[in-house]
């Protein structure tokens, strides 16, 4: 009997610990390889920081229980082909309780077919395209401001500075940038701007000289567009080396990356519409302040957080808040709590549309505009210039 005591004790101990330790499994895919790698991994870092902080504080507390967070994730290779296979696996084999979306709109749209089918909640982050939410979903909740809103702030700001500006749109011919630029063009015309030039370039374009010549010929004074990092940074560099007389340059996504500063003088003055910037001073009702988040993030990853990282962390926070409100991890109850969510975190306000024809669309969150400026010591830094209530510096206009 004595010999059996230890094994019995171990088995019982195992049962007791597994029986009481409540784990909550969150599933998602990450683009560890492929074109979306940089942005997707920044988003992942946001998820991870949230998980580590929640677990260190004892987990999510709901209905008298504590839940520790564990992640299951796979590499989606930045490719829609495998996304449904991987999300089915996350739901059925890995028994994920809740899901985060992959990075990018197209991957998210593909994953949504599976998550809706299994009635699983998916917080979508890094996916700004709004179309997915109009297709009749019940369990999607978008964290990013929809693409159609991206450039509206820039145009509003420009209206106050230079209502007679001639605007050129030069943008990547890809799903996201087209979804952003088309509504922006309409909005520019509505505000009475002269849209002097508009052209989409192929993804992976490396030589913009022909387009730049056309921009010069059109006598445009403001350039809006871009797409992702590689093309955006090349475009900015070539616009600078061609000495195009522009008063303002606004590019999507690329200038948000800390790497942007490495472009040197070509980076100066470029504006990026951003989901979040460390300087934005939102009073957080829930979770850490912006400064606390940025500090913890920088300490862990040795780089300041981008808006993808902030979006990742905030997705965790919003889910945590909903689970606490629901007092349960039951999907229907948490979905109801998410539908009722209207909170301000360090990331800004989050509120989801509840109408059937656009369920889950983000309607609370607002974009900010950040501009690369030289500080007193001549170092390049990003400053928030719009909305005025959140600004950390004045807009530099014209840039040259």
């Amino acid at each position, binding site marked *: 009997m004595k010999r059996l005591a230890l094994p019995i004790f171990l088995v019982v101990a195992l049962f007791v610990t597994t029986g009481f330790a409540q784990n909550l499994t969150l599933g998602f895919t990450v683009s*560890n390889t492929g074109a979306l790698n940089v942005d997707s991994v920044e988003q992942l870092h946001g998820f991870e920081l949230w998980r580590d902080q929640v677990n260190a504080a004892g987990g999510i507390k709901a209905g008298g229980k504590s839940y520790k967070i564990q992640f299951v994730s796979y590499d989606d290779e930045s490719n829609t082909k495998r996304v449904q296979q991987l999300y089915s696996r996350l739901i*059925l084999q890995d028994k994920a309780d809740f899901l985060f979306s992959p990075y990018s709109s197209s991957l998210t749209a593909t994953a949504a077919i599976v998550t809706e089918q299994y009635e699983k909640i998916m917080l979508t982050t890094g996916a700004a395209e709004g179309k997915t939410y109009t297709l009749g979903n019940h369990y999607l909740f978008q964290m990013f401001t929809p693409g159609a809103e991206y450039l509206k702030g820039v145009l509003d700001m420009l209206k106050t500075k230079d209502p007679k500006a001639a605007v050129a749109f030069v943008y990547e011919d890809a799903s996201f940038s087209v979804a952003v630029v088309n509504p922006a063009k309409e909005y520019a015309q509505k505000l009475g701007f002269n849209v002097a030039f508009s052209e989409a370039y192929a993804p992976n374009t490396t030589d913009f000289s022909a387009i730049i010549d056309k921009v010069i010929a059109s006598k445009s004074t403001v350039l809006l567009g871009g797409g992702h990092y590689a093309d955006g940074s090349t475009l900015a560099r070539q616009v600078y080396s061609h000495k195009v007389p522009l008063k303002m340059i606004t590019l999507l996504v690329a200038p948000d990356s800390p790497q942007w500063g490495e472009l040197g003088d070509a980076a100066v003055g470029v504006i990026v519409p951003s989901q979040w910037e460390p300087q934005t001073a939102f009073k957080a009702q829930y979770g850490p302040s912006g400064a606390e988040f940025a500090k913890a993030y920088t300490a862990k990853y040795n780089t300041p957080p981008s808006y993808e990282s902030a979006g990742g962390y905030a997705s965790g926070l919003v889910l945590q808040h909903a689970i606490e409100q629901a007092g349960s991890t039951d999907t229907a109850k948490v979905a109801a709590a998410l539908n009722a969510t209207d909170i301000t975190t360090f990331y800004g306000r989050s509120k989801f549309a509840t109408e059937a024809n656009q369920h889950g669309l983000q309607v609370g969150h607002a974009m900010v505009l950040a501009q690369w400026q030289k500080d007193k010591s001549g170092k390049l830094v990003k400053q928030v210039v719009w909305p005025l209530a959140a600004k950390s510096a004045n807009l530099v206009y014209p840039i040259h």
Partner: protein
Amino acid sequence: MILRRPVFWLILIFAALMAFIPFHANDVSMREDLILVALAVILASNLNLMIGYTGYVNFGHIVFYGLGGYVGLYLATVRNWNLVLAALAAGLVVSLFALALGMGILRLRGAYFALATIGVLLAVQSFVANFDPWGRSTGMYVDFSAYQRLGGARHALWMTYFLVIGVMALSMILSLGIKISKFGLGLFAIREDEDAAVVLGVNTTVFKAIIYSVSAFLPAVAGALMFYKNGMIDPSIAFEFMLSLEGIVMLMLGGKGTVVGAALGGGLYEKLRSYLLTSPKLSNFQLVIAGALLLLVVLFAPGGLIGWLYRLVPRARKVIE
């Protein structure tokens, strides 16, 4: 007679098992794994008609899959056609397109033809990215309600799975049928020596255009089904050059010019990638391992797995075609 070929029956049994096992076990994970295997088999088998049978390397084969996806999705969602009809129509439209195109570019030979196929891929992609009815570069999305017409998403996804398995079986049977036909002999003649084939009375331009068109049909049908299942399509996803290259790798792995080799290569390659991708220990090295394995195959078994089997058991040639 095709019915007397043991491989014909093997194909049917294989397809029936692939359809039955996940359905019987109600295992959706397995279904999602197997549908990608089936897709790989479809692409590799049809590519084999060009590369393996005719000796023409087609780098832009994926263009048929993508175009089929677009035509199918457009008919099924915008025009509200029945999914099966939309997929068949997609196959037909893309085949006709390939036939017209083939009459032109198949006058080229060797490396020039291979280059032209890349050109076709890029040209079609640019066209679609600027074509308004297909949503330009933002593509098209399937409304969730579209699945309701097929009895809900759950039911619809099972249905597309069975259809894709059907297309897979047809692809292999088509390969076999062509291989044992007189038309197939004509293709082999072109592969071995095109000038000699002309002298023997093979109308090479027509033969090549027909096989180019035939090799477009089933991938286009599969494209319509797969993109319907995925719920969205855009030009960067539909015309992915990488997938075209992977198709060629699959053929090399299995053994080009054989019915079973193409399917085996497609299936194994997909299984391997999928295993490496989800394995917790190996996922960080998946591309390295896949690359190294392929290098080994090319170095030590240049005829692919089937070529290696033929060398080992020469009699296998009679059964495994």
